[in-house]
Each structure stands twice: as C-alpha cells, then as structure tokens.
C-alpha cells in the first residue's frame, strides 16, 4: 500500500504564505473546483440546478459567494463551482449527479492554483498585475484576465481587502513569482 499525501501546488508540506507590510499572499490548497457547461437545449434546466446549488445563477462577470459551494461565470453557459476540498473532494462527481444530463461537468481541482491576496495594498498590487478595473469592482465581481501572460481568474471577495486569484497550476511558481515581486516592488515605495 502506497502512503501518498497530496502536496500544495508550490511543493513543500504546507501551503506557502508570504507576509509583506501591507499585504499577505497565501496559497489556498483547500479548494475543490469543477466546471459546469450547459448542454445545448438544456440551458434552462441547467440554470435551474445552478439556482438550487448556489441560490442564484452568476451573471456574466459575477461570482455567487455562497457556502459551502460558490460559483462564478466563466463564459456563455459556463460556470466554475468551488467548495472546500476537506468536505467536497468529490465535487465533480457530486455535481454530475445533481446536474444529470443538463450539463457537462469537468473536474478542475488539479488544474488551478489559488492565491489569496489580502491587505490594504491589494488594489495597488492588482492593478500592477492585470488590466481589470479593481477599484470599480465590488464584492462578487469575477473577471478572467492575463497576469504575466498567464490566463487567470480574479475574484473580489466579501472582505474589501481580499482578492482571490486562480491561475494555471502548472505555472504556479511563475504566478507566485509575479505576485511576490509585485508585492515587493510596492513595498519599496
């Protein structure tokens, strides 16, 4: 019997936390993800299931911050659903059971790395990293954008100083490098 334990995207045994004067950047390894794509002709039925799951269907550019499952809009008739990994390790399976043939569900947990950027300098760091209008965004706004050539999702959370960034897990080190160098350059001012 193998005795294997999962490792965070950046390696090591525990998720990485980088503390700066005005911001903390921490890797969040407790996130299960799965994407939902409505099947052709079943859009209404799929949205009904989404409403049951999240309380509302996330509109374009929006997230539905909800417990334990939360979700955001990714594209026309496509959404990403997230939940704590501890309790929802089999999220994709659970969603496929719920959505049945109204949607195609894809396991996404292993595809993304999640960083939480929290602190008063969050907007300054965000606007140095990507072209989203962070100061106009409100809690629950979610945008796909590009950070250092990597396609990422940027989600403004309930706490006004909290930004969640989802990036490609295979480029986790590059994204982390982008985040900490930006935080460091801001600190130098």
């Amino acid at each position, binding site marked *: 019997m193998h005795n294997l334990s999962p490792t965070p995207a950046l390696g090591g045994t525990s998720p990485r936390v980088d503390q700066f004067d005005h911001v903390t950047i921490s890797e969040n390894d407790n996130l299960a993800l799965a994407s939902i794509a409505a099947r*052709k002709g079943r859009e209404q039925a799929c949205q009904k299931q989404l409403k049951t799951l999240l309380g509302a269907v996330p509109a*374009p*550019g929006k997230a539905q911050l909800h417990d334990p499952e939360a979700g955001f*809009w*990714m*594209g*026309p008739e496509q959404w990403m659903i997230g939940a704590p990994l501890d309790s929802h390790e089999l999220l994709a399976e659970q969603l496929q059971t719920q959505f049945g043939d109204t949607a195609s569900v894809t396991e996404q947990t292993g595809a993304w790395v999640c960083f939480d950027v929290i602190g008063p300098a969050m907007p300054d760091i965000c606007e140095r990293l990507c*072209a989203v209008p962070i100061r106009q965004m409100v809690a629950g706004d979610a*945008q*796909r*954008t*590009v950070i250092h050539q990597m*396609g990422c999702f940027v989600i403004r959370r309930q706490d006004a100083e909290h930004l969640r960034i989802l990036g490609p897990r295979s480029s986790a080190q590059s994204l982390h490098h982008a985040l900490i160098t930006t935080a460091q350059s801001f600190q130098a001012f």
Partner: protein
Amino acid sequence: MIIDHPLLGPRDSAEFTYMGDAKLIERPDWQSDTAAQDFYDYGYLRDNPAGWHEELWFHEAGDRSWLVVTRNTLTHEIAKVALATDVARSKGRSR
C-alpha cells in the same frame, strides 16, 4: 482599440485574437453538387476591403467567446459587436 463585448462591456483589444473573416461562419454544404468549388472558395478566397469588414475575434484572455466585430479597416472604428453564436443562429445554423 477597444472592443465593446456584448456581455462584459468595453475590453482592450489586446485580450482578443483575430480569427479571420466572419464569412468563415458560412461553411458550405458538403453534400452540394458544387461542394468542391464551394470549399475551395471557402478555404482560400477572401475579400480584402478598405472599409467596413465583418471579422471574427476570439476573447482569449476573457470569457473565450467568439465575436463578430464590424470594423472599419481604414479607421479602426468599430460599428457593431455580436456574439458569433447569435450571428450563426440568426443565419439558421444550429449553433
């Protein structure tokens, strides 16, 4: 250049990739008697207008939707932006 995305609002054109003439939506019928000639035209022949042009743009750094953008090739003015799915459906296509 700013492209006014029908769902997401004004976005920088750097987020998009140009995918060619919007006539690519009108794929010929492969069962037609003139299919060989139709596909030759579809594959190789393009108009190159100095003025208004309907183009496909892919929102690569955004929601990954395909758009039909009506752009003036002389001034870069954009007159109209629509989702390519809506345009295809309005032409009687299933998707």
